[in-house]
């Protein structure tokens, strides 16, 4: 890596089911201006803008970065638009970081968003393409059989998913930006919530949100002058495998395992469970917490659920996971990955507010997408690597 890169500003919108109080322009600016203010900058200080978003059909605008050029202060500057399915928020942050690591730019603004309420996301996902096999069960129906396979393979207790959901929903109560804040949530409410795609219950699933997330990234010289403590990017990694091929392990995908392995190697981490202080990972259905704990090498195969059970992933555990409430509490799809990357950066910067993990020095941000096939991750630390 030629140049150091640090997160020097973080901003996000209030996430909600429908943000009809703002246009798409207003939504991205709400996040971008908070990030710029956090970095002590204005649009004029920025060299390049990198935008990420999931499918264009979610808003009904083709390549919307074109129309956002003015509102994000990108006129006369380079602007990129990334789309790597659900992992896009993470991939976008990685592309933005690479512009600095390459030594091409000093200050980069990166923004991810989704404003699903402007179109019909469920429709966009289920457009019936002739000649292809129809979706027979909706989005949750794609992942539910994999969760059942995980339960069978690991022998995890059936209430593991409920425990994850309870933890994340309680964490969300400490996050002022979270979409779903269920005061007084308890185990029984989740256990008794309707089974949607058996074995997935309603309160074990993510909502669908409007929202945006933004970060200002800078090189070492810029970071040293930043008004607040920077979070230094120690390593980034992306891995992809095909959607389907014979013998593919969709429960513990090789691409995720490889991505984590190369990430830790680059960051000089040999024992991730010990060396990483906290994580923000992409958990759209609660059962993915234990699955990803194994995939990310925090737990041996089939033992990820024990971390949840033992409270290791709780806010006061030895490896807190999704302190912000995670995707289960706010899910503006295109921004969900970047929210993980930005929330972990805020932990390292000591800027996470009520859901701050005391003394967090090294953290993991994680996103995945497609049929568990696209992975993007980064490690940030309180000192340059």
């Amino acid at each position: 890596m030629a140049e150091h890169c640090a997160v020097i500003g973080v901003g996000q919108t209030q996430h909600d089911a429908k943000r009809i109080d703002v246009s798409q322009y207003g939504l991205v600016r709400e996040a971008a201006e908070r990030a710029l203010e956090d970095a002590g900058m204005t649009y004029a200080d920025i060299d390049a803008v990198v935008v990420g978003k999931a499918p264009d059909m979610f808003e009904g605008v083709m390549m919307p970065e074109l129309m956002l050029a003015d509102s994000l202060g990108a006129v006369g500057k380079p602007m990129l638009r990334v789309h790597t399915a659900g992992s896009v928020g993470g991939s976008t942050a990685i592309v933005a970081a690479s512009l600095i690591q390459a030594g091409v730019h000093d200050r980069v603004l990166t923004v991810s968003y989704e404003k699903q309420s402007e179109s019909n996301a469920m429709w966009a996902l289920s457009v019936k393409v002739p000649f292809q096999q129809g979706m027979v069960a909706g989005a949750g129906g794609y992942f539910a059989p994999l969760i059942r396979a995980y339960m069978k393979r690991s022998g995890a207790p059936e209430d593991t998913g409920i425990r994850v959901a309870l933890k994340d929903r309680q964490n969300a109560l400490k996050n002022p930006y979270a979409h779903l804040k269920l005061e007084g949530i308890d185990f029984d409410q989740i256990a008794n919530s309707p089974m949607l795609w058996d074995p997935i219950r309603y309160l074990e699933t993510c909502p669908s949100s409007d929202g945006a997330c933004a970060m200002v990234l800078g090189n070492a010289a810029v970071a040293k002058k930043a008004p607040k403590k920077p979070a230094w990017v120690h390593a980034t990694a992306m891995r992809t495998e095909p959607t389907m091929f014979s013998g593919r392990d969709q429960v513990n995908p090789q691409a995720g395992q490889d991505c984590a392995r190369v990430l830790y190697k680059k960051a000089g981490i040999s024992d991730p469970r010990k060396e990483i202080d906290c994580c923000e990972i992409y958990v759209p259905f609660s059962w993915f917490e234990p699955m990803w704990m194994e995939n990310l090498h925090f737990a041996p195969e089939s033992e990820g659920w024990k971390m949840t059970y033992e409270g290791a992933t709780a806010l006061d555990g030895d490896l807190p996971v999704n302190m912000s409430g995670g995707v289960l509490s706010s899910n503006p799809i295109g921004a969900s990955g970047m929210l993980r990357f930005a929330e972990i950066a805020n932990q390292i910067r000591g800027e996470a507010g009520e859901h701050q993990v005391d003394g967090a020095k090294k953290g993991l941000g994680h996103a995945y997408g497609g049929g568990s096939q696209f992975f993007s991750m980064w490690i940030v630390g309180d000192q340059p690597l």
Partner: protein
Amino acid sequence: MRDVAVVSFAQTKNVRRENRRNEVEMLIPVVQEAVEKSGVPKQEIGFYCSGSSDYLAGQSFSFVMAVDCLGAWPPIAESHVEMDGAWALYEAWIKIQCGEADSALIFSFGRSSPGVIRETLVLQLDPYTLAPLGADPVSLAALQARALLESTDHSEREMAEVAARNRSNAKNNPYAQLTGDFDVDELLAEPYFVSPLRKHDCAPISDGATAIVIAADDVARKASKKPAWIRGIDHRIESHQLGLRDLSQSTSTSLAGEKAGAIDIDVAELHAPFSHQELILRDALSLGDDVKINPSGGALAANSVMVAGLTRIGEAANAIWDGTARRALGHATSGPCLQQNLVCVLEGE
């Protein structure tokens, strides 16, 4: 900065409608050809990046199945931009500059035939004020052509000359779609399509795919007898509001050209889907009469959307490889009326 070169380029023939093969079936031979020609062993390619559009394909996540053409096993480092493949090449070039990879495969695919491209591109406009008007890309380009004709010395004759030259050049390009010899006076005698544009001023509607391999330093030197070195690459965007721009100029192209070092150019491959846009781009890049423009025939001979920009970089590399140019320029554009532009300057040894 690391020295990075284009080491191979492959493309499908551009056709009005590819009605036999699906995207993956189109891509497999193109990707294989690019890898074989590159001299870089497939398992050593360090990064993959593609460019495509869901709205063009008519389904969300359309790029996901394109991964099927790569043999992504063991898992690969891969990314995708919802942009012309030229920007995918830019992302790959950045990755190589970071030292994250020594080589990369870039590909893009675009089929305009499933939908009606003039209607699809309306959705690129601001959804609150412009898209509801149904302003289509040809009409917007016509506004731009009018601005050019009224505010400069450029003429409709020059536009017809651009169209005739590109399609004549394309006779030597087996991948082109619209080729042949056209008489400028006869073209000018044709009726207007969307005034002041005539049919010949507009690009054909195409389906196609392109793949390119780039490699750094010794990997490029070892793999290729004649690497086409990327001496500069830059891209810039302008306002989306057409009223805020002088449509007769392309300031973003000028700026990108300046940053990419677009001087002493022998051959320029310009991504101009409308004839007047080639005139604007030539002015923006100060390309004189001594510069050979679009030996491939350019976008006026084949215009697979999301692909044609990446193809221009490949064709610029072709000009280095066949000895036509010592320094060649590849240009890509995106958005209504040349809103966003990328310039890539290539050089032989």
